[in-house]
């Protein structure tokens, strides 16, 4: 499913503040697998996650996801790839605070050609899975942390992605909500989604997953 070969990422290339964020990383994730990237902040795990998510491009190496090479994909195609295959869950939820839950969940779909009915159906399904349907018309800024996280999950699921990428998903959650989150992840894992989680939270140790430790831009 996800195939990384000799990934290097260098920030500020050939400048005094050059920074080698990832060094020769190779990683294979098969379909349906659950991967946890562990490492302290600054270790390069977020960069790696972003490369998988085609948000940034590697300085060298190849990235193949679902048989599609994305390392050099022009933005126009990379964005289609993101919209079709990926779901993102972020550390700080990254929701539109002013919009309602339902409006937030539809955002990944609206620039595509899709009928209003399809949109409605997909949004409803995603809200059901994440158990946030009862707050559909509430503004996000009025939600609690746990509800926000569920809204973010629903948004990540709305395009029925094959791969779900989570960046420090529990950093802003209390213990109780973290547990609910892990339960949801387990369920998605059971549904056959490929999931990659970048975290330093030890709560994920309880999960049955392949754990990859990253230190200073290399896998150890």
């Amino acid at each position, binding site marked *: 499913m996800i195939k990384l070969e000799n990934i290097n990422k*260098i920030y*500020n*290339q050939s400048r005094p503040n050059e920074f080698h964020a990832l060094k020769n990383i190779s990683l294979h994730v098969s379909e349906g697998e659950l991967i946890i990237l562990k490492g302290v902040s600054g270790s390069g795990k977020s960069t790696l996650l972003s490369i998988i998510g085609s948000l940034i*491009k*590697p*300085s*060298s190496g190849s990235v193949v996801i679902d048989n599609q090479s994305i*390392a*050099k*994909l*022009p*933005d*126009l*195609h990379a964005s289609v790839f993101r919209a079709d295959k990926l779901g993102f869950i972020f550390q700080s939820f990254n929701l539109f605070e002013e919009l309602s839950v339902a409006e937030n969940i539809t955002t990944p779909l609206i620039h595509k050609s899709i009928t209003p009915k399809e949109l409605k159906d997909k949004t409803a399904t995603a809200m059901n899975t994440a158990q946030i349907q009862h707050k559909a018309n509430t503004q996000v800024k009025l939600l609690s942390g746990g509800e926000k996280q569920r809204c973010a999950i629903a948004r990540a699921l709305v395009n029925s992605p094959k791969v779900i990428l989570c960046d420090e998903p529990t950093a802003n959650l209390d213990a109780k909500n973290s547990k609910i989150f892990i339960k949801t992840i387990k369920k998605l894992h059971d549904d056959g989604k490929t999931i990659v989680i970048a975290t330093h939270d030890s709560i994920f140790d309880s999960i049955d997953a392949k754990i990859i430790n990253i230190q200073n831009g290399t896998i150890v």
Partner: protein
Amino acid sequence: MIFLSNGVIVFLFIETLLLILLSVAFINVLTILKSWNFEATTTKQYILEKRSYLVLLIIFFTLSFKIILLPYFAYMIDTLSDVVPGAMCAAGVINANKYGVWLLWLKIFILFLVGIWIILNHYDLKAENYPFFKKKLWLFILIFALIAGESVLDILYLKNISTKSIVSCCSSIYGASGISNPIPFDLHVNELLALFYLLFTLSITTAIYRFKFFSLLSNIAFLYIAYYAVVYFFGTYIYELPTHLCPFCMLQSGYYYIGYFIWGTLFLGTFFGMSVSIIEYLTDIDLSRLFRYSIIFNTTFILICSTYVLLYYIKNGVFL
């Protein structure tokens, strides 16, 4: 006298703005062309890729306005006939000095290239590795050079329109001036018409059977002959006056602005007929489906023209 009317002032202002925007794009295109290497994974290449979006945005924006501005130019010239003594329609104003006709042809040619650029851009963005990126930028540089030339001509032309000296009106420009026959190859009007319908059939046939190169040739010939056929035959039915020969009067409100449709469909029809083989030459993409548009527009053009003749015949029982 360059500021002949409010229309001219606005026109020049807009042209200047567009030229400034295009210059910004042009400078960016030069830097991009200098170090573009799609295979490279350097930060520089990624910056260039981002910059290319700005270039495409500006080009797309300005060229779209260029498309609106050509009919507007025709309209503006037409309204100027109130200010220029002797002119009854745009024909007199265009021929007010030696630059006018060249300027008009240049504008049409630029629009043709703009059309090709837009199609090229479309297919370049559709592919995953910018296959025609450099070609389309070089084409842009050509267009930019022509537009810069166009701006110079714009100013030369408008500056040299005199509101004092009298210009000829259309009937003396296009009308039979003495012995020489204005129709090419010394054709009679009947022969011109026969050739016109023949070339139309040829262009449709080449489009249906997708003979790309022949379509290019037949559409060039069709464009050339159609121009004369409209001026020397169909126009007289639009004006319902056998001596009124003019490609411009039909742009006026008195004829329900039909001229814009006639010249517009002719331009689009022949554009699609010609561009397929030109773009294929540039890109190796099979664009035969564009022939569809050539057929649609050319047929619409010929229907509009023929309808005028038919209606006249039905109303009056005779031909002119």
